[in-house]
Each structure stands twice: as C-alpha cells, then as structure tokens.
C-alpha cells in the first residue's frame, strides 16, 4: 500500500515536472525565436534581387546595397546627421549625467531620491509629449529649429541611461577608497580623476553606448524638433516604409543591424553592457 502510494506520488510529480518544464520550455523557445527571427528575415530580404519585399526572395544580389551607396544621398545625409546629433547629445549627457550621479548615487536623502526619479522620468513618459512641449518652447522664444534644438531634445532622453549606469557603478565602488585618498591629502578633483573615474569608466561607457543608440533611433523628439532641411535617419526610414516600401529600407536595416551586432558584441566585451542594462 505505501509502496504503490509512493509510486503514484512519484508519477504525479514526474508529470508535474514534465508539464512545468514543457510549458516554460515552449514559451521560452517562442520568445527566443521571436527575438531572433525578425532580424534574420530583414537581413535575408535586404539581399533580394527583386523589387518587392517578398519573403523568401526569388534571387539574391547586392543591388540594394549598391543603390543605397551610389544613388541615395538623402539617406546617407540623414544617417550622417543622426550620427552627429547622437554623438553631441551623448557627449553632453555624459558630462551632465556623471556629475549628477556623483552627487546622487550614494545619497539616501529624500530630495536626492526625488531628484533621481525626476532625472530618470524621460524613460517612462511619452517622449512625444516632450517633443511637442520643446517645440512650443522654441516657437514662443522665437528660436528657430536647428541642430542645437535637436541636440537639446536628445539630451533629455539620453541622460537617464548614463545616470543609471554611472550610479550603479558608483554604488558598487568601495567608498573607503575615496575616503583614504581624500584623507591622504588628495584634492576632490585629483581623487575623481585617479581613483573614481578609472573604476566607473565601464559603467559610463556602457551608458554612453546605450544613450548613443537611443538617440540614433529616436523618432518622437526629432519629429517635432528637426527643421525641413535636416531629416534624421529613423524619420527618413519611417517615411520610406510608410510611403512605398522601397527595398532600400531593407538595405539600410541590414547595415544598421550589422553595425549594432558588431558594436554590441565589442561593447559587451569591453564594458559588459548587459550587466548595466538590468
């Protein structure tokens, strides 16, 4: 009797084990396929030799990459402008974000927590509203739209990433190191340069990389703040996809995906971005 009861119990627990890992395994596998498949589809499509986005393509060629390189100055210019704006916005937000993180990271006071959540809020709020709000501000002050207004808008959305990764690095740092440097007579600036900065550089770099990619990809802010002459790459792409589904959009995507993978893997090796994104 107890023997068979144990047998039934173990069968039940085996069935339970099986259903548990079965359900989790299937759902997890779906998640992995979903994360990878779209990117693979885009890359394969970009090598089509046809005029449509038919998948799988009938034949393969590099014609759309050639078309992108040789006869699409407007796309290349948009890419260049996006890179400039992203680089400027990232550089300025590194200065602003690292400074603020130095003051906020180790503080438990209520005002510091509040200030920290305010600085992080652009990650949560609909940035389209912020884009419109900035447009209203620049209109009312008579400030025409320019590269400067674009960069200002982008700084608001890139700073949170740098603040977050830098704060995390500062919290993990041993506070005693700073205190001993200071008590041995080093100035605050010298301590920052020789002790703090070398230890937080991976965090700052990871934040800067994520910030650059976020700015490069931003539509919500650029939609309102770029003037008629300066079109940003994601908006150019949006127009192409919305209007006529030009296959050059696939070639642009192919280039962007390749660049992201290469940069992402390099940054993962150098700065461990995945640790800083959690």
């Amino acid at each position, binding site marked *: 009797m107890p023997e068979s009861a144990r047998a039934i119990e173990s069968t039940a627990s085996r069935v339970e084990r099986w259903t548990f890992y079965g359900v989790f395994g299937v759902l997890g596998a779906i998640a992995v396929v*979903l994360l990878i498949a779209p990117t693979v589809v885009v890359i394969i499509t970009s090598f089509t030799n046809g005029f449509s986005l038919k998948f799988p393509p009938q034949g393969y060629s590099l014609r759309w990459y050639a078309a992108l390189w040789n006869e699409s100055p407007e796309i290349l210019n948009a890419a260049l402008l996006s890179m400039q704006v992203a680089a400027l916005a990232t550089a300025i937000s590194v200065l602003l974000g690292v400074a603020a993180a130095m003051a906020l990271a180790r503080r438990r006071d209520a005002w510091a927590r509040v200030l920290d959540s305010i600085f992080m809020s652009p990650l949560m709020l609909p940035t389209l509203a912020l884009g419109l709000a900035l447009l209203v*501000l620049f209109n009312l002050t008579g400030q025409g739209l320019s590269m400067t207004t674009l960069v200002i808008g982008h700084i*608001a959305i890139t700073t949170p990433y740098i603040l977050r990764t830098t704060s995390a690095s500062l919290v993990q740092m041993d506070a005693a190191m700073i205190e001993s440097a200071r008590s041995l007579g080093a100035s605050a600036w010298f301590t920052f340069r020789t002790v703090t900065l070398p230890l937080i550089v991976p965090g700052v770099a990871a934040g800067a990389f994520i910030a650059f990619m976020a700015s490069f990809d931003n539509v919500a802010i650029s*939609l309102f703040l770029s003037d008629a002459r300066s079109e940003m790459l994601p908006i150019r792409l949006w127009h192409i996809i919305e209007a006529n589904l030009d296959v050059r959009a696939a070639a642009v995507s192919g280039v962007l995906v390749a660049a992201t993978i290469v940069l992402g893997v390099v940054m993962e090796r150098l700065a461990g971005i995945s640790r800083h994104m959690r």
Partner: protein
Amino acid sequence: MSAGTGSIRRDWQLTLPLGLFFLVFVFVPLALLGVVSLYTTSDLKGMGLTQYVKFLGDGFNLGVLGLTLWLALKTTVVAILIGYPLAYLYTLAPRTLQRVLILVIVLPLLTSAVVRTFAWVVILGRQGIINEVLLGIGLIAAPLKLLYTPGAVVVALAQIEMPLMVLPIITALANIDPNLRQASEALGAGKWRTFFEVTLPLSMPGLLAGSLLVFAAAASAFVTQTLVGGGQQMFMPFYIYQQAIQANNYPFAATIAMILLVSVLVVVTLMNLIGRRSKGFVHA
C-alpha cells in the same frame, strides 16, 4: 573621516548643471504645454477648459485614448507571458548558454525600433513569410490581411518591447535564494505550486518594473503603431502629431499630449503602489 563627510556635504552642487537643464528644457516646456492646452482656439485666443471638454466629450477621442491604453495593456500581458519563461530559463541555464542568451535579449533592444518594426512589416505583408507558408501548404487560397490589424500591432509591440520585460525579471530571479525553492519542493510542493507560491511572488518587483517599462513604451510607440497599425487604427501619439503638424491645432495637440501624459503617469503610479505593497507582503 571628516574630509569624507565634508565632501559629501558639498557635492550636491554637482546636480546643478543637469538640474538646470531639466528645469529649462523639461519642466518649463511641459508647463508651457499645459498652458497652451488651455487656449480656446487654435490661433491661441481665450482661455478655458474648452479643449479638455472637447476631448472628453467626444466618443471618437475617448475611443483613441481607450484603444491606446488597451493596446499598451495587451502588449504588457503578452510580453509577460513569453518574457517571464525566457527570464526563468535564463537563470537555470549554464553560464556559456547565459552569455549567448543575454546577447539575444540585449541586442534587439539596441537595434533601431524602426528596423524592428520594418521586420514585422516584411513578415506580415501580403508576400511575407506567414502568407507564403500558408499558401504553400494550401491552407489558404489568397493572402491573408495580417498587417494593419489590431492583433498585428500587439504581437509586434510585444516582441519589440520584450527585452524591457525580460531584463528586470532576470535581475529579480537572480536575487532569489535557490534554497527557498529547494525547501519548498523538499516539503512536498510540486513544481507549479513552488512557482506560484514562492518564485513568482518573490520576483514581483522585477515583473512590475518590466511591466511599467513595457506599458509606457507601448503607449507611446509612434513608429510601430503607425507602420504596423496602419491608417485605420488611430492611437494617441499619432493623434498628437496629426493635430500639431498636419492640422496646426496646437491647443488641441497639447491637450491630447497632456491627457496621454497623465494617463500613463496614473497607470505607472498605480503599478508602483501595487509593487510597494507586494514588496511589503514578501518581507512580512
């Protein structure tokens, strides 16, 4: 010692540059947006709540708001359903597999959202892979209309925002003492009961953090909403853009933006409150 406390007392000044930036380029503009939303006419004359009355008194406008919040909610649920198991399996995986998996999770997040949206346009199109496969095995006679449907937007958005869900859950799961799970199973609770009564409650902070991010991102995902949703479905972000840029009606655009801002803020605050409660429950 005294040097340490001294420097801590003075370094608050380091928040000034960013604080000033936020004051001038986030707070003042948002306040101005609030003021503009109070103008009665599109040429900025008269003040009052006219625009809000107009928005909240019109079935079409309320429909757009409802559709946007409903979309964000459905996206969040789908992202949990497939994102949670992935995060769970990640924590069980051996180290080498974890290194590959984390790249699979993080790289899409770094890839342009326009590119990831474009991928869905290709997949769901008339000549996309789904239609080609279904036609190929003879399940359908003519290509299905998959793009520009409500379901398509949910699936595409859930996929695009999934990393935002998975990463905080991984962090929360990694912080759970594995002994708790083993103890639960040793005491006779099965896999499922252990999951629902031990693992899931303890991972609640991560689940909520992920839900907040996905909800907020889905509600304001302009590109995915317009490209996968198409012209028939109007969501709040495009409505703001249309009223401001195409119709030049800034007061009404500002009103829509304020209402979207407040709605997202309310949902985020509610989720935060629930999160704090669940934390208290776990520690008690």
